Every structure is written in C-alpha cells, then in structure tokens.
C-alpha cells in the first residue's frame, strides 16, 4: 500500500502542498477484518456488541435477507474519523457469499469490502487507491485543513459528534454539555455533509484519473456509484432540522459538491482549475462557530441557541452554512468566469497559489463578503 500512497501524495502535492504535510502523513489508512473494524469504529460496548451480533448473523445467514443487508451495507464500509483515521473492512469470503445471496448488491458489497473472492488484483488496487484518496486525503484534508473541519474534529475526538457515542462521556460532565448542544451539533454536522462528501468525491475521481491506466479505469464506475446511485440525503430530511430548512438538491451526498468543484476546475482550465477548486472549498468551509478544545473537552463560544440559529434560521445570513456558501461562491465564479480567467493569466497564478491578489478570493470577498 505504501508505494500507492506515495504515488497518490506526489500528485496531490502538485495541486496543493498541504496534502503532503505532517498532519496528513500522520493519518492512518488501515484495511481491517470486520472484527477489527468493529473494535475501532464502534468502541462503545453496547454498539460494538450489537455489530458483533450483526456480523455473526451475517456469517450464519444462508438466505436472501434484505433487513440484514440494510444493516451491513451502511455500517461496514470505508470510513474516516479523526479518532482512528481511515479504515476499510476487508472480507472477500463474506462479501462473495452475500453477493451470491443478493446479486443486485454485488457492486456495493465489492466496494464495501474491497474485494470479492474472484476479484482480480487490479480491482483490489483500484479500490484501495479510491479509498486512500477519498477517506484519507479527501475527508482527512477537510478535518485537518479547513476551519470548519477542525471544529468538527474537536467534537469527533471527544465523542460529541455521534449520538451512539454519548455513552462514552462522563456523567454529569461533559455529557450534560453534549446534551445541551446536541441539536446544534447535529445541524452543524448535517450542514457539512455536502461540502465534505463532495470534496472527498472530487479528490477521489480527479486524482484516480491521473493514476496509471489500470487504476484510472475505476473512475467511471466509481463516478456512477457515487454521483448517480448513492442515496442518503432525501431520507435524512425527515430527521434533520437543517435539511428541512435547506433542502438538498440531490439524494446523493456526493453529487452537488462534486459537480460544483468539477465545474469550477473545468471552468478555469488545466493550469489553474484544480488549485481554484481547492481554494473554493477552503473558502466555503472558512467558518468559525467558536468551537475549540479546552482542558476538559470541547468549549463553545456560542450558546446552543445562537449556534442553532446561525445554522437553521433562514433569516440569518449564510455565513455559517458551508453548503450554502459553496452554492453562492459557485454562482459568482461561474458567472464571472471570463474576468477571473483574465486576472489569472495576468497574475500568472500557476506559479504560486494562492497569489496574494488571488482573483478567486478577491471576487468572493467583493461579492459575498467572505
């Protein structure tokens, strides 16, 4: 895996040097058996036991079982967290048997468990490359290098982000603080899905395309899988105050962010496009809600009500909503494409990025005040 990682980072650093810095190098990428995966990803004992039972049931099952499949697919998949880095479950035997029982989900099972028993070595390399790019460098970059991501990382590291991890927190403190902020944290988490997932998909698909032919062949099927087939956001509306107020454009969590960053990259051409897309992503996520780490865990500068209102009150400006920021930045940039391109040529942006007079930053500041 190391040569593949080195090859990937060499290409990423060319687009943005921070992809190669120490914080990114420290992120682990591990391929784990399902049992090891549960230990890392679901450390809370009750949740861990639940998924160990699920896994045991999956290993025993000999019939079509849609209910069990719907527990396996979303919960055993490549994932990133600041606590344990990037992890991918690996079990070709289990994935193959389940693919025989559920032929229509063969592709999902292959992607979730990296390979099937009859997969060729190229398939495995393609999937590992895709997950290195998506999980380690896409999500890893978001949590390490964006202002919004670093605040979410504080919450993740202290078990404030996922409801099922509440049992890991001490009573009465910090569990009571988590409970007071639960609704605001949930809105913040949902507001970041489209930019975080869209960026991870953009990193994956763009840089996969630059790899050797055997790996680059993954681009089309992965794009179809992520952009056209993935579903999640519409079903989230019922339980998300954020998405009830600001409805997602598409059901795929990857589609809007990916397509916008991809269009910006295309609009600004080979010399500048990737660099501009990364600057747009950094601007969209340049949000402070005053969350920082203190000696006893996360500290909040805003009250729960202030934080929630900044996110879900439509009367408030879009400053705190990364997906709305991306939408508005995208509109401004695509409408003023010719002006930005001529400035880029004049400033010779390909030599250093961001240029002190970066036309992308200047336009966003002038039009949107960010």
């Amino acid at each position, binding site marked *: 895996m190391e040569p593949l990682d080195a090859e990937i980072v060499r290409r990423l650093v060319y687009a943005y040097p921070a992809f190669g810095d120490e914080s990114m190098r420290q992120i682990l990428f591990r391929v784990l058996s399902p049992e090891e995966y549960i230990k890392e990803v679901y450390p809370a004992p009750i949740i861990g036991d639940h998924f160990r039972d699920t896994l045991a049931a999956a290993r025993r099952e000999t019939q079509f079982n849609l209910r069990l499949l719907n527990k396996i697919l979303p919960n055993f998949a490549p994932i990133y967290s600041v606590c344990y880095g990037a992890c991918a479950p690996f079990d070709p035997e289990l994935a193959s048997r389940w693919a025989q029982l559920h032929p229509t989900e063969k592709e999902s099972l292959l992607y979730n468990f990296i390979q099937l028993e009859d997969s060729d070595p190229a398939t495995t390399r393609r999937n590992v490359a895709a997950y290195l790019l998506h999980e380690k460098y896409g999500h890893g970059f978001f949590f390490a290098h964006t202002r919004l991501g670093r605040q979410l990382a504080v919450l993740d590291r202290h078990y404030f982000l996922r409801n099922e991890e509440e049992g890991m927190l001490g009573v009465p403190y910090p569990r009571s603080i988590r409970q007071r902020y639960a609704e605001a944290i949930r809105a913040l988490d949902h507001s970041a899905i489209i930019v975080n997932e869209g960026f991870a998909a953009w990193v994956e698909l763009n840089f996969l395309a630059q790899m050797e032919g055997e790996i680059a062949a993954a681009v089309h099927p992965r794009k179809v899988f992520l952009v056209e087939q993935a579903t999640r956001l519409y079903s989230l509306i019922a339980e998300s105050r954020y998405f009830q107020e600001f409805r997602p454009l*598409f059901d795929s969590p990857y589609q809007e962010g990916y397509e*916008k960053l991809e269009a910006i990259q295309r609009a600004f051409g080979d010399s500048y496009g990737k660099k501009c897309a990364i600057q747009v992503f950094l601007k969209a996520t340049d949000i402070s809600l005053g969350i920082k780490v203190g000696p006893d865990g996360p500290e909040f500068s805003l009250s729960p009500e202030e934080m929630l209102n900044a996110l879900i009150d439509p009367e408030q400006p879009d400053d705190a909503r990364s997906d709305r920021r991306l939408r508005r930045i995208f*509109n401004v940039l695509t409408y003023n494409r010719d002006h930005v391109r001529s400035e880029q040529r004049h400033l010779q942006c390909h030599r250093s990025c961001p240029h002190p007079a970066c036309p992308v930053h200047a336009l966003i500041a002038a039009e949107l005040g960010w």
Partner: protein
Amino acid sequence: MLTMREAVQRAIRWVDQTEDQALLIEGSYADGGRARRLHWMKNTLLTAPTEGLQGDLLDHWIGTGLLPRDLFKSDLSEEQPEEV
C-alpha cells in the same frame, strides 16, 4: 426579468427538445446516456418542492454547463436546442 415559473418552463422546453434529439441518436434511455440524464433533470426540476429549490437547481445546471446560460436571457423569445 424572468419569473421562476417562466425560467422553469424554458428549461423544460429546452430539455424536451434536446432529449428528443438525444433519443434519436442513442435509441433508448441507455445507462449513462445523455437522454437518460436529461430525463432525470426534468423529473428532478418538476418534483422540486419549492421555487427556491428550482432556482438552485437551474443555477447548478447552468454553472455545470448542462443548461445554456443564454436560455434565460429575458429578451430571448425562441430557444433553440443545442447540438447534441
């Protein structure tokens, strides 16, 4: 200035014409084909629950190059579908 209703009507008319041309070339709503994509766009636009969301969809497709920006110039009386 176009109303959102007029903008949506123009987009639907353009999509219908372009979809017909794409179907003539592709023969079916084949996987990954332009006709299938256009058909999906129209459904997504027509089922969007608010005008605000319809506007955001149109902005997205104009910006990503799926819809021609000129289509929404308010002085345009007849839209021609682009070459497929």
